[in-house]
């Protein structure tokens, strides 16, 4: 590896976008290498159990897509120096809202979705306002809203439909767009890819992305530079809530039912996906492609393991080890990135 870097150093820094050095110091590199490594190991252990078949890949991609849709905006918040764990409650709350409104109360799906999005945006806004106004760490604020929203979802479900779950079958077109399988891949996989592309643009191409990195890097300097720090953070909390609500709707469309129990694993999964994807927990650093690969890796380990000879119970151990390795590696990749091309000394 060091040879490659040496070559990159000696070439002109103005080389094309896809030079070896450019790729090597790309922050998504660690996530990509990790993903390939995990995939290869699992493929070796699962070759004869159809790990590499379309059905096998679709199985863990479907699982990953639901995490991925939430992990991207959560990653944005992490880059901006905040956490959002209320997603674990927003997902079932949104699913139940949609299920109740369009099921027993027979509202048209479009209207139901609109109300659900508005409800989720409201929660995200409250998160944002609380975090920016009170200076209480976002971990605590969203922990509070996680439980508050979770409790409210259960209570309201029992009040409205007398049960903590509700059945709802979406109309044909909506089902085709949001819930059906294509070659084994659920619609959510395509939505995940689409959302990734759109948010890639926001994070890495648009000026807003620059603001997100600046706010996470040093909020005070960002404020001095004229970036509306509070407004940006509130928007990011709303974005996170909206994406989570969308994931909840996809779930309803796919499984024809909604559950009101708080989705605790989602909280850990989104954070793990981001960290394995190279996002810095303290903010200021991360890439969308990294988060994407991180989510895929998580999907392989948690779900793809069923298609291999590896004992299913080991998946949690693997994730723990992977998380540690990722955090340690992220430091190395950052050093690589910051020290790159400083070889030229003139003064």
């Amino acid at each position: 590896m060091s040879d490659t870097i040496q070559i990159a150093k000696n070439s002109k820094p103005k080389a094309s976008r896809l030079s070896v050095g450019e790729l090597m110091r790309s922050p998504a590199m660690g996530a990509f290498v990790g993903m390939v490594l995990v995939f290869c190991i699992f493929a070796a252990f699962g070759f004869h159990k159809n790990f590499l078949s379309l059905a096998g890949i679709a199985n863990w991609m479907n699982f990953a897509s639901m995490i991925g849709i939430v992990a991207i905006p959560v990653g944005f918040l992490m880059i901006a120096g905040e956490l959002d764990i209320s997603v674990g409650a927003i997902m079932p709350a949104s699913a139940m809202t949609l299920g109740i409104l369009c099921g027993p109360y027979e509202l048209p799906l479009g209207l139901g979705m609109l109300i659900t999005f508005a409800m989720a945006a409201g929660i995200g806004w409250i998160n944002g306002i609380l975090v920016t106004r009170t200076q209480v760490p976002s971990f605590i604020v969203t922990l509070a809203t996680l439980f508050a929203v979770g409790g409210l979802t259960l209570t309201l479900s029992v009040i409205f439909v007398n049960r903590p779950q509700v059945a709802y079958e979406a109309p044909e077109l909506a089902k085709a767009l949001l819930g059906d399988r294509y070659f084994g891949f659920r619609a959510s996989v395509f939505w995940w890819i689409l959302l990734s592309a759109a948010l890639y643009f926001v994070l890495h191409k648009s000026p807003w992305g620059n603001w997100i990195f600046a706010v996470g890097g040093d909020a005070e300097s960002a404020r001095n530079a004229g970036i509306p720090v509070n407004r940006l953070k509130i928007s990011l909390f709303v974005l996170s809530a909206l994406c989570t609500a969308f994931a909840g709707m996809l779930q309803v469309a796919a499984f024809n039912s909604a559950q009101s129990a708080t989705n605790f694993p989602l909280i850990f999964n989104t954070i793990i996906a981001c960290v394995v994807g190279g996002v810095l927990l303290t903010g200021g650093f991360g890439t969308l492609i990294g988060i994407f690969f991180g989510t895929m890796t998580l999907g392989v380990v948690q779900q793809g393991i069923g298609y291999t000879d590896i004992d299913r119970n080991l998946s949690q151990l693997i994730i723990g080890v992977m998380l540690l390795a990722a955090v340690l590696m992220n430091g190395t990749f950052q050093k690589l990135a910051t020290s790159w091309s400083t070889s030229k000394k003139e003064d």
Partner: protein
Amino acid sequence: MSDAKTVLELRNVDKSFGPIDVLHSIDLSVRAGEVLCLLGDNGAGKSTLIKTMAGVHAPTRGEILMDDKPINFTGPKAAQEAGIACVHQFGGTFPLMSISRSFFAGVEPTKGWGPFKVFDRKKANDIAVHEVRNFGITRIEDGDRLVGGLSGGERQSLAIARAVYFGARVLILDEPTAALGVKQSAHVLRIVNEAKRRGLAVIFITHQVMHALAVGDHFAVLIRGSIAADFKKGEKTREEIADLMAGGESMADLEAKVGIEA
């Protein structure tokens, strides 16, 4: 030098927080192309004075004039728009962002239209690298490099170059050399001279007398919230200034005391 225009002036400024008086009747002025060194020990009120000039605090009494017109800043943003830029030790730069993205944070150049405006990386890189190199940091030639890879002095220079590019007329440097080694400090002092040469009014806050003497045209020593001395270059020796900063107590006395205890 004497015919240069006074850019920023403080007249009889007092600042108190509730019952605590921090600044007492401060009179200061700085002209274009001049470096005013503000010296003072810890707790002398330097930070409050900077914040008052940068629009963070409003003076309790007295007035601030810019170009001989009284002004009232509503906040740091207003002061910035009037051309007062404050650069803290590492202020204004983001270690894990590229040089050009850091340079243009908050005012990104874009191309494209409507919601599809994209950050114009090439333009940002070209301008940022050009501006920083103009300040003598020739080691930087790639705007994509991360700020974290720069030395402390270079980061300081980047922040100063940024302030100048965005139209600063008064540059307030808050202890820019405090955390730097000798070589890096020399680097920053060179940048200060360059800013002065370009006609900026520089207010250089430090407690290192040597650094102040190297670039200053005009010195003010702050003791317990008041200006204890206000003099021009060459009017006082290094020892006299050090004595003043120590609160009038002679440095020789101080050394003697330390010597006895050790």
